[in-house]
């Protein structure tokens, strides 16, 4: 894992910073003069993990690029809440074109910079799961396939949240959305639908693919740094709990991301050229209910009749734990 090892100084690796750390050991986010690329006054909901993860990613990328970073943004929550005309909450140069074409726009910027001999300026594209997994998938796949010099970051909140919480192809099974109501014999999103963008990216055999969550800042910063040290197409998939769409407490966003990882629901991995190279082990295993129960979109799983669906969730966690050796010790 690219995670930085932090000595035990009251807290260890898991906290943002610590007064006893040396300058080299500090995370980007712990610095009083961090870039704060996504600044105050944006209109994200209370407790929005996407806004948080976007600042973490962007600050690290800005640092890694020596301040020379251009960002292309797909349509989605992130674009809507950060740029209400005529205001912007972004500090780096930032462009929004269409829902589907963020990867293509970024490809164009990268090609243009290359033509000008400006290899010192780096390019980042970002979008939600709608703009990445559904609507923008063709452009993303093309960017991967051509190995364009772009870091593409997907903030996955598992649905179309700012338009009223409709399902996407990243919405998990059984989740209630406006278009997958919790009614009938199989309430919520159906089992057997949806796709794994991480696996799709790996199948392109691009230089670097990773997943991360806002429950582990150090891991996320390290992955952005690793990605920025590589040229070519790179993909980072960040799970971002959404209080609005998930029906969770605004204060619980970090805790839910933690539960997603510690239950085995969301594997945190790294892959190079299509090969899995590292996984983050489960530190304190929790049952899937620790992740599901605090979310109103899964409330029907905790009423009579929800047991079968819960068992299928457990099987999913077990499958992940097996496939990625999340508990360690298999090799």
């Amino acid at each position, binding site marked *: 894992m690219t995670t930085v090892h932090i000595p035990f100084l009251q807290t260890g690796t898991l906290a943002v910073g*610590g*007064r006893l750390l040396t300058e080299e050991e500090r995370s980007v*986010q*712990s610095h009083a003069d961090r870039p704060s690329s996504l600044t105050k006054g*944006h209109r994200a909901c209370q407790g929005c993990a996407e806004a948080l993860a976007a600042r973490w990613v962007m600050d690290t990328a800005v640092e890694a690029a020596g301040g020379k970073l251009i960002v292309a943004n797909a349509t989605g929550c992130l674009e809507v809440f950060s740029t209400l005309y005529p205001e912007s909450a972004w500090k780096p140069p930032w*462009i929004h074109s269409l829902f589907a074409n963020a990867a293509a726009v970024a490809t164009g910027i990268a090609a243009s910079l290359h033509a000008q001999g400006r290899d010192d300026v780096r390019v980042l594209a970002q979008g939600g799961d709608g703009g990445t997994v559904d609507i923008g998938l063709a452009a993303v796949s093309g960017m991967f396939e051509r190995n364009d010099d772009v870091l593409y970051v997907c903030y996955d909140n598992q649905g179309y949240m700012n338009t009223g919480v409709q399902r996407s192809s990243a919405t998990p099974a059984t989740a209630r959305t406006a278009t997958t109501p919790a009614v009938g014999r199989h309430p919520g999103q159906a089992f057997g639908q949806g796709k794994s963008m991480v696996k799709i990216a790996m199948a392109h055999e691009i230089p670097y693919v990773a997943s991360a969550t806002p429950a582990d800042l150090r891991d996320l910063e390290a992955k952005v740094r690793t990605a920025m040290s590589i040229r070519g197409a790179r993909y980072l998939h960040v799970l971002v709990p959404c209080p609005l769409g998930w029906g969770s407490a605004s204060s619980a966003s970090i805790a839910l991301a933690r539960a997603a990882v510690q239950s085995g629901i969301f594997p945190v991995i790294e892959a190079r050229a299509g090969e899995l190279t590292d996984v983050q082990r489960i530190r304190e295993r929790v049952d899937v209910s620790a992740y599901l129960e605090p979310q109103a979109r899964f409330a029907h799983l905790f009423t009579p009749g929800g047991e079968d669906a819960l068992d299928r969730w457990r099987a999913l966690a077990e499958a992940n734990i097996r496939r990625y050796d999340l508990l360690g010790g298999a090799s």
Partner: protein
Amino acid sequence: MSGHDSPPTVGVSTGPATSLAYHTGTWRTERPVYVDLAPPCSLACPSGEDIRGWLGSTQEGEVGFEKAWRRLVAANPLPAVMGRICYHPCQTACNRGDVDEEVGINAVERFLGDTALARGWALPAPAAQSGRRVLVVGSGPAGLSAAYHLRQLGHAVTVREAAAEPGGMMRYGIPAYRLPRDVLAAEIRRIEATGVRIECSTAVTSLDHAQAEFDAVVLTVGAGVAHHVDIPAGAASHIVDAIDVLRDVASGHPPLLGRRVAVYGGGNTAIDAARTARRLGASDAVVVYRRTREQMPAHPTELADAVGEGVRVQWLSTISAVDGPRVTIERMELDADGRPHGTGEYEELDADTVLLAVGQDADLSLLSDAPDVTVVDGVVRVDPVSLMTGRDGVFAAGDVSPGSRTATYAIGRGARAAKAVDAWLASRVLPAEPVAREASADRLNAWYYSDAPKQHRSELEAARRVTGFEEVLTGLDAEHAVFEARRCMSCGSCFECDNCYGMCPDDAIRKLGPGMRYEIDYDYCKGCGICAAECPCGAIDMVPEVR
């Protein structure tokens, strides 16, 4: 850092306006507020130490040791002693016990105490002379603490001690394998160096005379007289008081106890006596106690150490008669209320000596001319806030007054008595101690405290222990002491981990720099509560907004 500090210049379709113009703070229904709560360790410490504070300084390593020690001696002038003999109720209360194992506070206290002695750090200089004279009667932990704190406040303090050397039960009761005498002597000398005058072999026999000589008197004579029970005993029986044995050993005159020793009682004195008997050559030391292990007043670690050294305990038993080497024991049973009753079943035990450790009383002979000083249940009655006895200007603290009979409690009461005397001398009313809000375990987010096991002080091998009076526990080295201090979770008080600052989705927390903590920008804080939820130590409250 290469931060972009200029206002955002963005895409072609928008002007240079920034979202800073929009104050999202208006959305808030709850606001995060930083708080400083009292940690359970300090609330449980009878000496009133700011444990979280001095552990915090220790965490900084070498540069923080002296600062840590100074914060420690602000409450307790005997850290090297208490780092050895305190039963550390702070550790029992420590929230870290719920995470892995409680912080080894006592071991760190001893490390700081020993470091101070090794480096010759002096106690703080006293305040300017007040011109008032205070007599402290007795030089045990309560007396030394009272004297130290009174001297710090600028008063001229004399301690009068009946015994040949100062220290009270620390000198004559607690065995040397738990408290080496050079450590005690060094810490007492350091108190004397602040100007406290200690007069040994000087018994105070009259309160009237004492008050004629001094402006105020603090009684800290302890409870050094053995309590007695009536046991039918034959002429050849060898029955002695355990406290006398401990005193004789401490004075350099170890008595002959024989090969088989029975100790009657269940307190720490009984355990100390049994362990001492083993060291004096008894192959068989049996503690006879009339109740069960759960009810035993002796500290569990003392009992465990004793058992490890080969001491046996005969539970639910009383000694009903002693005749020469034969001790008759009656089996007991507990009734529904947990009280022991005789069963009428007897058995015999062979013992060359029976040591009585069934409680200790205060020697109150100096009160013979002071009928206004009320004595209830063998101890001097005091006002619970001012610690003043029935006589104006006469105060009492430690074992001679009501309360827990431990050195730690005595040090706390001695300090309290010093404050009370100081207030009385200035005709001020001493306010009651404020009740602090506790940083309870449910406020913590333990995820952030990496698993870090307690650094165990290595114990001398049990076999080696029973051959002498060498100290049983060795101290931590600096590296381990710092590590142990860093296991402190700083319950209820910000230690600048940056979680709130780093995890605010709205970038609405400002970091003010080392030691200055953070500030919330309420113009932008939406009140999501992530900062409070992810604060490891529970130092943020969410408070409803009132508009």
